[in-house]
C-alpha cells in the first residue's frame, strides 16, 4: 500500500473520488461520492478531430489527452465544489484501451495521487461502464446480468457482487459497435457509425432485408458480427452490380435489427438460464434506441427488471470510473506507483 493519508483509509461513506478516464478519444474527469452521486462529470470529446480519419487515430488521441487533461480535471473539481484536499482517492482507467491514450491518464493520476498523498485505484474500463448503472439506479445491487456493447467490446457479464465479474459471453470477432462503424462507412454515413445508423434506421424498414443472425454452436452466449457485416457488404455489392438503387435507410434498419435481435436474444436466454431477474446494459451501443426499446420489452415479457444508464453515462465518461473505483476503494484495493496501462486488460482480472 502507498504512503497515504490514513484518516481516509477506513471510511466507507462520504467517500469522494476524483476519477480520470483517457482510454480512447474522450478526455474525462469526474468527482463521484460513494460511487453513486455524481458531483461533476466533465468530458472533452475529440470525436470531430478523428472524423476526417474515419476512426480514432491513437497518436492524435494521445496528444489531445495531454493537452486537455489538467483543464478537464480542474473543471471537474471546480464544478463539484471541492478541492483536491477534500478528495479521498484517485481512480483511473488503466485498461483496456489504446495504450498511449491510457498512459496519459495513468501517469497523471499517479502523479496527483502521489503528490497529494491520496490512495490510487486502477479501474477496468468495462467495469466502469457496467457501474454506470449504479449511478442511474441508486438501489441497484448485484447480482445482475449486464450486456456490455461498445465500439471495442461485446460482452455478457454476470455481476456476482460489487467488483466480482464473470464473463458469460463475448464476441468471437467484431464488437457490435465496430460492426456499426463498418456498415456506416459502407453506406456512406461516416464516423462515428452508431448514432448515425440509429438515426437513419428510424426511416427504414427493419424487415426489408433478411440479414443473418449468427449463432455459435458450442457457445450460445457468444456473439459474432463479422458474418453480418459481410452480408451487408455483399448485399451492397450485389445491388451495385445489378444497378439497383440501395435504400440506405432499409439497410441501416435491417442491419441494426439483426444486431439488436442477437444481443437481446442472447441476453434474455442467458439471464433465464442463470436464474437472474435483473438485466442491465452498458457501453456506447447501449444508447442505441432500438436496442434499449427491444431489450426493455423482452425484459418485461420475461419478468425481468431492465436497467439502462442515461445516454451520457453510456458513452465514455469518468463518473462511471468513479462508481467502479468506489467499490474497489471500500474493499481496500490500492495500486502502487508502478501502475501501468494494460491495453488488453481482462474483466475481473485484479
Amino acid at each position: 500500500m502507498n504512503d497515504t493519508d490514513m484518516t481516509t483509509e477506513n471510511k466507507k461513506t462520504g467517500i469522494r473520488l476524483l476519477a480520470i478516464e483517457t482510454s480512447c478519444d474522450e478526455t474525462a474527469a469526474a468527482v463521484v461520492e460513494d460511487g453513486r452521486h455524481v458531483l461533476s462529470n466533465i468530458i472533452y470529446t475529440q470525436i470531430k478531430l478523428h472524423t476526417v480519419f474515419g476512426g480514432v487515430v491513437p497518436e492524435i488521441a494521445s496528444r489531445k489527452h495531454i493537452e486537455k487533461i489538467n483543464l478537464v480535471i480542474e473543471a471537474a473539481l471546480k464544478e463539484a465544489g471541492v478541492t483536491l484536499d477534500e478528495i479521498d482517492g484517485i481512480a483511473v482507467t488503466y485498461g483496456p484501451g489504446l495504450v498511449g491514450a491510457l498512459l496519459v491518464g495513468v501517469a497523471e493520476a499517479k502523479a496527483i495521487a502521489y503528490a497529494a498523498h491520496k490512495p490510487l485505484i486502477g479501474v477496468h474500463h468495462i467495469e466502469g461502464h457496467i457501474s454506470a448503472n449504479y449511478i442511474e439506479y441508486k438501489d441497484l445491487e448485484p447480482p445482475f446480468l449486464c450486456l456490455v456493447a461498445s465500439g471495442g467490446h461485446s460482452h455478457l457479464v454476470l455481476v456476482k457482487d460489487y467488483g466480482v465479474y464473470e464473463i458469460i459471453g463475448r464476441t468471437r470477432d467484431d464488437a457490435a459497435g465496430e460492426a456499426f462503424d463498418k456498415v456506416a462507412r459502407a453506406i456512406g454515413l461516416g464516423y462515428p457509425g452508431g448514432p448515425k445508423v440509429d438515426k437513419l434506421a428510424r426511416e427504414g424498414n427493419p424487415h426489408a432485408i433478411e440479414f443473418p443472425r449468427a449463432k455459435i454452436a458450442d457457445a450460445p452466449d457468444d456473439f459474432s458480427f463479422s458474418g453480418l457485416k459481410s452480408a451487408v457488404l455483399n448485399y451492397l455489392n450485389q445491388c451495385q452490380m445489378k444497378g439497383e438503387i440501395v435504400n440506405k435507410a432499409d439497410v441501416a434498419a435491417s442491419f441494426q435489427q439483426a444486431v439488436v435481435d442477437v444481443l437481446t436474444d442472447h441476453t434474455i436466454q442467458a439471464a433465464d438460464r442463470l436464474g437472474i431477474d435483473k438485466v442491465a446494459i452498458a457501453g456506447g451501443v447501449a444508447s442505441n434506441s432500438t436496442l434499449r426499446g427491444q431489450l426493455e420489452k423482452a425484459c418485461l415479457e420475461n419478468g425481468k427488471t431492465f436497467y439502462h444508464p442515461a445516454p451520457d453515462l453510456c458513452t465514455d465518461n469518468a463518473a462511471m470510473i468513479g462508481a467502479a473505483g468506489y467499490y474497489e476503494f471500500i474493499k481496500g484495493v490500492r495500486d502502487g506507483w508502478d501502475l501501468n496501462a494494460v491495453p488488453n486488460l481482462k474483466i475481473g482480472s485484479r
Partner: protein
Amino acid sequence: MRVLAMDSSGLVASVAIVEDDTLIAEYTVNYKKTHSQTLLPMLDEVVKMIGQDLSEIDVIAVAAGPGSFTGLRIGSATAKGLGFALDKPLVSVPTLEGLAANLYGIGDAVVCPMMDARRKQVYTGIYGYEGEEFQVILPQTACPVEEIIEKCNELGRKVILLGDGIPVYREMIEKRMTVEHCYAPAHLNRQRAGAVAKRAMDLIREGRTETAADHVPVYLRKSQAERELEAKGRKLEE
C-alpha cells in the same frame, strides 16, 4: 531554488533534485522497463532517501521533447500531475538542450547531441558556451544525419558527440565528419535529469516557466496519420 527534474524522452529514465548548484539526488536507469513502471517509483525512492518535502520544490522541470512520443507523454503527464497537485510551475526543457548540458568547460568546442529519430533521421542541435553561458547555436530539429554532419563541418569547431543516435550512425560520422570530434563517455552521453535541472535553472532565470495545465510536449513531428492527410492536401481541423 529547488528544482525537481525528469527525463523519460528516450530509453533512459532519470529523476533528480537540484538545489541551486548542488545536485542532491539523481536516479538514472537505462533499462528496458517502461517509464510508466519506473519513473514515479524512482521519484518516490529519491524523495524518501533525502526526506524531501515535495511542497518545498519550487519548479518541476521536464525534458519536453523531442523523443519517444509515449515516453515524452509519461514524463509530461507526471510533471503536469505533480505541478497541479503541488500548485507549482513547470519548465519545459528542450530534450537536446538537456543532453548538451551534460558537458561544460569545453572552450571553443561545440556539443552535438543526436537521438535516433528513426526514418533515417536524428533529433539533433548544436550547442556551446560563451564564457559560462549556455548557447544554442542550432536549435533542436529532426533531420537526416548527413545534414547535421555537414553543419558541424561548416561550423569548423571541434565537436563533442553524444546521445543514443551515436551508436546507430557512428560509421557515417567517421566517414563524413571532417572537423575534429570526440565522443562523450558513458557517464555523460545519455539523458540525465541532473543536466535537465541545470538547463532548467537557466530557463527559469529567463522567466520561461509555464503552468501545469499549459504544458505540452514538443514532438517536432506530426503523427503519421496527420502527415498522410496533409500529403493528400488536407489539414487536421479541431
